[in-house]
């Protein structure tokens, strides 16, 4: 018998093409005659458009069309891009139009589209478009935006508040009354953007004979994109095919339906030519959705032993100028706060604020890192005030494994109560701290300080809702040629689905996973789908792959039993054959079975067996399944420059059943890199007029190979009871508690100076300013010598 593939580091099938430079990213699809789009985008954060003159642009050689909103179909002039997650709490949910209508609300908002025979010429023409703006005051910082009398982001709005959502359970008034200690802190959290290496991209073709559109999009969610196209362009299901080819990273920002995408099929039809748009990096900085600012004002009530009695606070979330993604990130933030701890009473107000900046939406972690930061920093402060060790205060408050399933008391973004299904939170922390020698660190720290070095240790825990439903479609089909195909709505951008889903299916079918052809991200290959984001694919598509493969396996056995006239229990599958156990020569090939299943006139299918050697599964999880883990880190701070070097980083990661260890490991390390970016490097800055200040990779810093510490990853396996294989999501665990862990470590290193750090990203400049005179280090002229002439 073939040994199981799940649990093994099967080599990646995606590598063959990619390593040879034969990837097919959207811009690699080169069709002669393709026209190219460039956009005229608003240079102002807030302005009324008085007039647009496209005459000069249109007359440039090579230019085919120059369109404003007035050139679009009536429906797109009247209706903005639809909201993807309606929520009754949204009171002022402004949505963007495909091209700006009358008023622009962020720098980078698209106003005019130019179509030409080359991108360079399209840009030349875009420079010739003349737009008369009436510049309006802009509101930039969400903290300023909620003030009375603040400048309005939208002139027709009544305020800058898009939504106010209360979250609560238990009796916080009582909790805070009874408290022995109330810790009160304000945190500033900033997360930047996804900054995938491949910018957004789309290529549309229109077939006038079939009246059909094919759109290649660098997207995480082709089926959702198809639905947008159907709605917005009034198309039938068979008229539009969306394909996500190779996609160079997504991290959340390739999930939205962007305005630019709408223009591709429209222009393909209008010009009769393939039409391509490749975002350049400047556009990526100014018009791809980001995460950005959150201001947290929090209070933690504890008893004399450091047991949490309650948490309350307010979260201000910068939504940007529009809310096309609803309240997803902010909602997740608020509901992630309790984490792995018993929090008897909870009250948060989440305020989603409009600002004249590009809209925000989920970026790897999707609001959880900020919540984890708040909770973990509050616990650190409480520990300090009560004189309890940081690890110990957490130990006292953990939800214990015996308490699973544990209902937190809040409603998650999936509409279901947050109910942790499995996980050993104390065990995870213990493992991490043991591995990093937490107990003996104080000695090492004292020695280092004596020799003038400032090292510190930090830790943080997380619980993550993963495997978001409602389903991911997987069809497994054994064609009449005998080849095995797996079609799915999952749409990877580096997550190795082609490898992992094949592994799952291979175990049920008894074949080498490399023999299963996996087709992802094509709305023509499988009719329904949701897409790859929010660490959901292993759970949803993995479960569907398993169930579909199981169903196909059963079909093979049923049909083969009828063909060979043997009992079903006597049959086994291996390497493309179904055979009688102990009599291998009595067998049928998958091909033979498939031909029968496909229908041979006159040959009846066995009772209860439907036609076709295939099965579509849309496994739907009852609720999200909760991964968890712990990070611990040792850092060294150069108090003179403020530079932080990470000396050691330990991750304990529990994602339930691991399909492919090497791939999960890669996800964790990649996730930690994002977390390090969040902690120290990534800051999308805007000025008070809403002008983006960081618009290239020289100013916006991504971690480099030389910035990464050695990372040790340990695994725990708490199977999920919510799906057949016990899988939980693995894509974001590396990121979630990283900023909290690292900032905790920096604060620990600077404890001799009483430095308190309530923000991230943390810059060296900020460290120096927090240290004050201590940052002078060796260059400090001691007072006693200052009176004497030294030179």
């Amino acid at each position: 018998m073939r040994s199981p593939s799940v649990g093994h580091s099967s080599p990646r099938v995606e590598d063959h093409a990619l390593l040879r430079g034969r990837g097919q990213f959207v811009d690699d699809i080169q069709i002669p005659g393709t026209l190219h789009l460039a956009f005229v985008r608003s240079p102002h954060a807030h302005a009324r458009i008085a007039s647009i003159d496209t005459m000069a642009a249109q007359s440039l050689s090579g230019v085919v069309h120059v369109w404003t909103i007035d050139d679009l179909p009536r429906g797109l002039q009247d209706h903005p891009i639809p909201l993807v997650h309606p929520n009754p709490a949204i009171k002022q949910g402004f949505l963007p139009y495909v091209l700006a209508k009358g008023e622009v609300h962020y720098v980078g908002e698209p106003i005019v589209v130019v179509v030409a025979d080359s991108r360079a010429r399209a840009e030349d023409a875009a420079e010739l478009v003349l737009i008369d703006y009436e510049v309006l005051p802009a509101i930039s910082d969400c903290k300023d935006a909620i003030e009375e009398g603040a400048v309005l982001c939208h002139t027709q709005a009544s305020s800058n508040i898009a939504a106010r959502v209360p979250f609560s359970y238990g009796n916080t008034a009582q909790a805070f009354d009874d408290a022995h200690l109330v810790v009160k802190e304000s945190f500033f959290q900033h997360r930047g953007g996804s900054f995938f290496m491949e910018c957004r991209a789309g290529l549309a073709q229109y077939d006038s004979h079939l009246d059909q559109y094919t759109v290649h999009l660098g997207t995480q969610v082709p089926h959702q994109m198809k639905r947008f196209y159907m709605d917005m362009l009034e198309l039938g299901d068979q008229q539009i095919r969306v394909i996500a080819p190779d996609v160079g990273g997504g991290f959340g920002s390739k999930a939205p339906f962007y305005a630019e995408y709408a223009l591709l099929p429209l222009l393909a039809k209008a010009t009769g030519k393939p039409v391509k748009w490749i975002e350049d990096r400047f556009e990526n900085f100014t018009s791809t959705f980001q995460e950005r600012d959150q201001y947290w004002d929090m209070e933690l009530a504890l008893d004399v032993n450091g047991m949490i009695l309650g948490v309350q606070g307010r979260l201000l979330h910068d939504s940007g100028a529009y809310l096309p993604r609803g309240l997803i990130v902010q909602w997740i933030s608020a509901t992630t706060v309790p984490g792995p701890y018993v929090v008897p009473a909870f009250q948060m107000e989440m305020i989603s604020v409009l600002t004249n900046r590009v809209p925000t939406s989920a970026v790897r972690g999707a609001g959880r890192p900020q919540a984890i930061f708040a909770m973990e920093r509050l616990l650190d402060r409480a520990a300090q005030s009560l004189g309890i060790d940081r690890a110990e205060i957490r130990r006292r408050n953990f939800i214990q494994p015996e308490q699973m399933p544990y209902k937190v008391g809040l409603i998650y973004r999936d509409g279901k109560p947050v109910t942790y299904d499995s996980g050993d939170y104390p065990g995870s922390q213990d493992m991490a701290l043991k591995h990093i020698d937490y107990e003996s660190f104080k000695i090492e720290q004292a020695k280092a300080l004596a020799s003038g070095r400032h090292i510190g240790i930090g830790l943080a825990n997380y619980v993550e809702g993963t495997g978001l439903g409602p389903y991911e479609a997987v069809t497994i089909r054994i064609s009449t040629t005998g080849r095995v195909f797996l079609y799915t709505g999952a749409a990877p951008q580096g997550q190795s689905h082609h490898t992992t889903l094949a592994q799952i299916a291979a175990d049920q079918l008894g074949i080498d996973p490399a023999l299963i052809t996996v087709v992802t991200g094509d709305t023509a290959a499988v009719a329904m789908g949701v897409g790859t984001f929010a660490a959901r694919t292993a759970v949803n598509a993995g479960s569907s792959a398993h169930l579909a493969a199981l169903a196909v396996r059963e079909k093979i056995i049923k049909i083969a039993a009828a063909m060979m006239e043997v009992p079903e229990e006597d049959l086994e599958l291996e390497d493309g054959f179904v055979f009688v156990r102990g009599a291998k020569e009595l067998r049928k090939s998958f091909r033979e079975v498939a031909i029968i299943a496909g229908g041979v006139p006159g040959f009846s299918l066995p009772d209860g067996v439907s036609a076709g050697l295939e099965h579509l599964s849309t496994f739907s999880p009852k609720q999200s399944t909760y991964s968890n883990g712990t990070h611990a880190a040792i850092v060294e701070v150069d108090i003179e420059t403020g530079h932080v070097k990470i000396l050691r980083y330990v991750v304990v990661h529990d994602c339930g059943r691991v399909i492919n260890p090497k791939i999960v490991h890669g996800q964790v390390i990649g996730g930690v890199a994002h977390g390090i970016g969040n902690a120290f490097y990534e800051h999308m800055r805007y000025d008070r007029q809403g002008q983006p200040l960081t618009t290239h990779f020289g100013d916006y810093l991504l971690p480099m190979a030389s910035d990464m510490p050695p990372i040790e990853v340990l695994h725990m396996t708490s199977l999920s009871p919510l799906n057949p294989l016990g899988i939980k999501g693995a894509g974001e665990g590396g990121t979630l508690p990283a900023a909290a862990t690292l900032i905790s470590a920096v604060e620990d290193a600077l404890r001799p100076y009483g430095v308190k750090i309530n923000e991230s990203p943390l810059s060296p400049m900020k460290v120096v300013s927090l240290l004050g005179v201590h940052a002078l280090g060796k260059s400090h002229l001691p007072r006693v010598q200052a009176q004497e002439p030294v030179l």
Partner: protein
Amino acid sequence: MNTNQTLSLTVNGVEYTREVPARMNLVDFLRNELHLTGSHVGCEHGVCGACTVLVDGLSVRGCLMFALQAQDCHVTTIEGLADKDGALSPLQAAFHDQHGLQCGFCTPGMLMTLQELLNEGITPTEDELRERLSGNLCRCTGYEGIVKAALQVLQSQSNAESAP
């Protein structure tokens, strides 16, 4: 800048002569004129390294060189790394062994930067290796698999050299 000029160069051992506009940069030329789409465009300001190719053996940013500046040069791209029969080079094979790629977009640049290093025949420490890679950004892997792959190949290269 819109005038065309004649460019003759060798790419992956094959000679080409084309008329190109002066303003076309090298990576756009390779991708759009020669249809060698293995080299990628990530930022157009010389930071991300996705466009890294070798020009006369030296790694350069393909987005910061005009195609015409490669006149009479020998350019090597990712498409030139594997054997004629398609077998992966030791470096490419190491990337596969060590899970050195996820989405694959930065990979061509990583490979060319490392190929230059391998061609130098030196044995850097891991820190030095990471510094050599600092001109190539990756957003997926956290660099660990890439570094492991490079170390694997450097090790086997130095073993081969010291073998009797």
